[in-house]
């Protein structure tokens, strides 16, 4: 799993590349720790290059959303490929997360 992190205006943008599973999700959880510690309020995660996610990956995002919401921050996920979106839908997490179709849309959503 490659994790690219950059700042765009006041928004923290993560670009993930690879498969998010039980083995790789601890790496993402570690990256998110910095977000929580600094209480970064606007976070976008681009999943365009994530072809696979399992329940550990979902749990990582659920935990991140909970922690970011605690300090009134926003987390938006964008560019989910159909296979990944389908796992979110099966778990009904598409009702919980802000899911954008494009990065532009995600940046607008998180900035609101």
């Amino acid at each position, binding site marked *: 799993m490659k994790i690219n992190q950059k700042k765009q205006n006041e928004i923290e943008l993560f670009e993930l590349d690879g498969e998010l599973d039980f*083995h790789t999700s601890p790496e993402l959880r570690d990256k998110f720790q910095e977000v929580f510690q600094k209480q970064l309020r606007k976070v976008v995660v681009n999943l365009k290059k994530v072809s696979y996610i399992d*329940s550990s990956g979902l*749990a990582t995002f659920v935990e991140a959303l909970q922690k970011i919401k605690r300090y009134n921050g926003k987390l938006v996920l964008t560019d989910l490929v159909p296979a990944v979106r389908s796992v979110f839908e099966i778990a009904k997490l598409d009702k919980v997360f802000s899911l954008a179709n494009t990065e532009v849309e995600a940046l607008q959503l998180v900035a609101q």
Partner: protein
Amino acid sequence: MEKMFELIAKSENLPPFRVTLRELLKQSDVNEKKSGEILLAVQEVLTNVVRHAYQGQAGKIKVVFQDSHDQISVTIQDFGRPFDLTQVPDPELPKKDPGGLGIFLIKKLMDQVEYTSPQGEGNLLRLVKFKKNAPQVS
């Protein structure tokens, strides 16, 4: 067609096995959506074995992949702590806390999930996915 595999229960062994399974599914005539569902369900079972059956110990896992005319079946056997995941009730969705979705996904994604604990030792799970959808009853 039948293929047998033996794995050591470590998280780093899961991604390479996923590559192997993906290749086998590509060779079968099951569609891409169902392949993805089988792949995810099997990985969730293997993750459970690593985390719960062996609790971090590097135990042995046997996997048998069978591709027959109407179904794909994958049998996963471990020799760790017995636990019948088919008895776990489905969670209320969407879950508010992280975790606890793996067993739900296994049951949701597969057409059949059968559990036995041979001689009360370890776990044997058989996952089945039918290649064609069951006809709708009108």
